[in-house]
């Protein structure tokens, strides 16, 4: 079980402060741990994972040296840039939990402090992630995994037209059917997929030949052997270890409809049933995220795996380039993934980490593109905007509606504009029917000298038997970037374990008070609620909380779903954009459909109603959409048809997740045909200029915010 009890919760908060961890870590491994996903609650966690951020870039040698200095074991997954000695600040790591006892925040802090002792923990940051299951870990692999046994397919160069450049297209997703017919060559026997990494598959290689630190890697030849040896794809994926459970989470590959199958198909599939000639010059890499992927749609727990996937893809892409004799091989990565909160200025840990590696690779003259979706939360009331004029009598009050029967934690983030020090502000929160209350002055706690300035407080609920903790209120200067964040974390309203305290469901009132000494004229303060949905019916019991405001208009004057924001409500649609898609090196794609008003002219699209966008006005910004691609066939035919997991199967999928991979596909085509100079010139705009597209003219500022000015078909 856990050591949670209402009495020692303040000790746990203190522990969170001592060992520097961010507010999500503090909640999920601290007072919120009894409610956290089962993998965090286990007593026998052996392999912790984290995304470590060093104060300054380190070369691989320096980074791995730190691990050797310690008695505690630490491992690195496959990292790009080793051979070029590229120094990096962000490193995905796996750390041994040697105590083998239940983890506490203190032991966690000690674990991390010890492995990076050489660096000075005080200045490093850690973003924790899901642990690795022992069956999937190569603990004897040494500090870096072995090289893969891989050789190029001689038929590719033979079949590739001379004017085409061999390039790499990679997809990071879940439930990817790597042996699917649509990813093979015309003969059905050769795979176009050169590498596939299943991050959570049980490992079955000997330690000295383990090519990946955790999970299982399959090269093209191995995939082709699977295809030869199994005429039944159910048996194939079982033999490949792709259909095993992880921490009790079922593998998506055993379903027909998954997220990764249609996404990879739209990016790279060639359907023999539709006589599509497979594109030989675009070589494929797939990374399948752990089964634990759907557990937390707030993204906590996954950043390390995402960054590992990007490194793996780039490392393997260099091998593909060398193998096929292509200098500076061009790489497109599609990642139909995201979260709703975050700073929305391109500075979230994951954005910064991906930006770093992409920029380093571009610096070496190697074209590298990241394609991301704009998100699906346009209508979900997850975003709010508080302008300086909204503080009447120095206060602004808003309502956070938390749903009943929610079995997962809820998170609301308040972000101050860059440079605004909220020292003279305070935040108060009151549960439904005054059932719980907390108030916090937004000044960092001076007791905590190490790490980013921060402060924690518990939210307690009054019961007849005494007070119980049902939430956590925190302030932090996010990555010391002068973006201050308030995070409210609430316990589930119906915890999995019925004897645990539940947060009351209903309307939680949050009051932001601005002191008289604070600047009275400032850029808007933003609110984002983390996405909290059960994406693919994995039975996690998520229910989405939202901002409730009677002045928010759901329906427009014509009776349709409103697509604009009024000035009456602080709850906004614009600004709902994917919190991971603001980074400087990513190309952000929204979803659209043809409009009935233009006789279904596909070249005159309107935004899909769910398709999220950045700000449309001139005040404040929260990222922007670069271009749009179809996400619906029409307003009465939702979604796009893509491949199911088994060859010959089809599924309908809706969301910006299916728009992004089409843009990735068109970008790979451009990479195959454009000159080095054209590509170089398009780099600053993340290669949008070289993609075949239709320019959208006469757009209103709202349309431009949603569609981004170009349509890709």
């Amino acid at each position, binding site marked *: 079980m856990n050591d949670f009890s209402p009495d020692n919760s303040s000790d746990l908060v203190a522990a969170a402060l001592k060992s520097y961890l961010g507010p999500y870590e503090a909640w999920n491994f601290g007072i919120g741990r009894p409610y956290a996903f089962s993998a965090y609650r286990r007593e026998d966690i052996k392999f912790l994972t984290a995304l470590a951020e060093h104060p300054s870039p380190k070369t691989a040698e320096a980074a791995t040296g730190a691990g050797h200095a310690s008695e505690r074991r630490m491992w690195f997954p496959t990292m790009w840039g080793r051979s070029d000695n590229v120094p990096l600040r962000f490193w995905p790591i796996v750390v041994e939990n040697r105590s083998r006892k239940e983890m506490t925040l203190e032991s966690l802090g000690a674990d991390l402090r010890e492995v990076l002792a050489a660096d000075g923990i005080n200045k490093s940051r850690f973003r924790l992630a899901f642990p690795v299951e022992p069956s999937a870990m190569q603990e004897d692999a040494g500090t870096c995994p072995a090289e893969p046994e891989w050789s190029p397919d001689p038929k590719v160069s033979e079949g590739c037209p001379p004017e085409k450049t061999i390039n790499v297209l990679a997809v990071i997703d879940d439930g990817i059917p790597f042996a699917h017919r649509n990813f093979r060559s015309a003969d059905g026997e050769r795979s176009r997929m050169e590498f596939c990494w299943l991050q959570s598959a049980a490992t079955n290689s000997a330690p000295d030949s383990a090519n990946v630190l955790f999970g299982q890697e399959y090269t093209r030849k191995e995939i082709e052997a699977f295809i030869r040896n199994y*005429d*039944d794809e159910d048996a194939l994926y*079982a033999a490949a270890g792709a259909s095993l459970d992880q921490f009790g989470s079922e593998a998506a590959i055993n379903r027909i409809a998954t997220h990764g199958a249609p996404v990879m198909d739209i990016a790279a599939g060639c359907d023999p049933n539709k006589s599509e000639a497979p594109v030989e010059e675009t070589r494929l890499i797939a990374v399948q995220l752990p089964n634990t992927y759907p557990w937390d749609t707030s993204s906590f727990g996954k950043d390390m795996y995402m960054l590992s996937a990007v490194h793996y893809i780039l490392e393997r892409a260099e091998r593909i380039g060398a193998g096929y004799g292509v200098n500076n091989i061009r790489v497109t990565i599609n990642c139909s993934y995201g979260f709703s909160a975050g700073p929305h200025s391109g500075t979230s840990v994951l954005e910064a980490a991906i930006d770093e590696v992409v920029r380093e690779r571009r610096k070496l003259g190697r074209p590298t593109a990241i394609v991301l979706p704009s998100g699906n939360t346009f209508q979900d009331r997850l975003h709010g905007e508080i302008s300086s004029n909204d503080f009447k009598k120095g206060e602004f009050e808003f309502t956070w509606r938390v749903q009943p029967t929610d079995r997962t934690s809820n998170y609301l983030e308040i972000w101050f504009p860059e440079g605004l020090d909220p020292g003279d502000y305070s935040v108060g929160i009151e549960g439904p029917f005054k059932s719980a209350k907390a108030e916090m002055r937004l000044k960092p706690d001076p007791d905590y000298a190490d790490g980013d300035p921060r402060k924690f407080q518990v939210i307690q609920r009054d019961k007849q038997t005494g007070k119980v903790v049902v939430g956590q209120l925190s302030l932090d200067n996010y990555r010391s970037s002068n973006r201050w964040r308030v995070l409210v974390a609430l316990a589930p309203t119906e915890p999995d374990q019925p004897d645990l305290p539940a947060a009351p469901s209903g309307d939680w009132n949050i009051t932001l008070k601005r002191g008289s000494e604070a600047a009275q004229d400032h850029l808007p303060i933003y609110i984002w609620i983390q996405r909290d949905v059960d994406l693919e019916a994995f039975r996690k019991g998520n229910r989405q909380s939202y901002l409730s405001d009677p002045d928010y208009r759901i329906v427009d004057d014509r009776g349709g779903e409103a697509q604009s924001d009024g000035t009456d409500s602080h709850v906004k649609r614009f600004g709902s954009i994917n919190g991971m898609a603001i980074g400087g090196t990513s190309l952000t794609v929204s979803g659209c459909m043809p409009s009935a008003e233009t006789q279904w002219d596909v070249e005159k699209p309107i935004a899909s109603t769910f398709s999220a966008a950045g700000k449309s006005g001139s005040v404040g910004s929260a990222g922007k959409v670069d271009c749009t691609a179809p996400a619906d066939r029409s307003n009465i035919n939702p979604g796009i048809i893509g491949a199911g997991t088994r060859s010959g199967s089809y599924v309908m999928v809706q969301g910006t997740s299916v728009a992004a991979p089409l843009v990735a596909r068109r970008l790979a085509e451009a990479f195959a045909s454009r000159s080095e100079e054209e590509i170089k010139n398009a780099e600053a705009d993340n290669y949008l200029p070289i993609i075949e597209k239709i320019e959208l003219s006469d757009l209103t500022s709202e349309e431009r915010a949603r569609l981004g000015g170009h349509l890709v078909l």
Partner: protein
Amino acid sequence: MAYFGGIGGIGGIGGIGGIGGIGGIGGIGGIGNLNATGLGGLLGAGGGSATDPLTVQGLLTSSQAISQAAGNSSSHASRELEFSSSENLGNWADWVRGSLFLSDFLSELHWEVKKGASESVVLSHRSRGGGDTQAFYEVTRPDAAVFEEQLKYVRSYMDQRPERTPEVLSQLGFPTPYFAMILGLTTGRNRNTLELITVTQVLAAHVAMIVKHHLAIRRPDRIGATVLPMIPTPGHGSFPSAHATEAFAVTRVLEGLVDASQSHYPDPDKRKKLLGKQAERIAVSRTVAGVHYPVDSWAGALLGKMVGEIILNKCGVSQVMTGLKYEAKAESDFMLSMYKDPDWKDHGVSELQNCQVAESANFKWLWDRAVDEFDL
């Protein structure tokens, strides 16, 4: 007169003589498919239709009124039907044929229950014409621990419930349309083939019930509180799965039919692969629903294979029939790719002796008509 609608289930077999006849012969397992059964798909097929009191009254009065027109001369000599001939089967009502096939099959089926340290059920075949009692299927009763271990699989399949709900619900009875889809069967052209499928399923279900009754294994929801099946748990033991028995028996018979109609389909091997794959999916969907362990599917699939081969032999398609023994293993998931020699040895399957099954004129009659439906 619900033929295979079967809310009454197997109880209906005793209904001979009542208005509406044998009622539930096909209804084993509850709500069945009302379409494409072949045996009585049409209400009262082959069984006469005048059963309502008003029509009976009307027939009486009209007979009074018209009989004078036939005159009263002496009767004519009539031709008799052939004695003891399967050629007469076509004259009988559908349910009568069903009854005859069932009696024929069961009259040659024997079972032995072994008690003691290792409990098992042995099924044997002995021809009505005499000869040896030949064991063709033996299954040992697994320890309770095996099923406790198997619960993990049952739970790990739960996530597929939303996706498979239509299949689970429409396969509560016999999943005939799922096989008809693969071979393109239609009620107009393929009534004999559909009757053969239904007969196979009825026989397989009866045999499975015998084994289930003796082994008496509790369903997953009784030993694991979180299985929470999405459909009501049936009122019979879990092991072996009757759905698996029926589906794999049908697959075996239809494989024989595809082989016998080589010129009909251009792609017979693909059809046969799909039949096996469909049978697997039908069996696994019962685990998804939360009413069967994977080892139930193993025991049922092996039993179904034997029932199918007995039927083929009775139909005159000579098959070498090697009996099978099954000892369930706790770690076995059920997958078609393992359901073959030698892979299935790892899952507790071993061979018994070879068996001989004699041709039956009645089964041959149905078989020949079914094969005729695939004449190009």
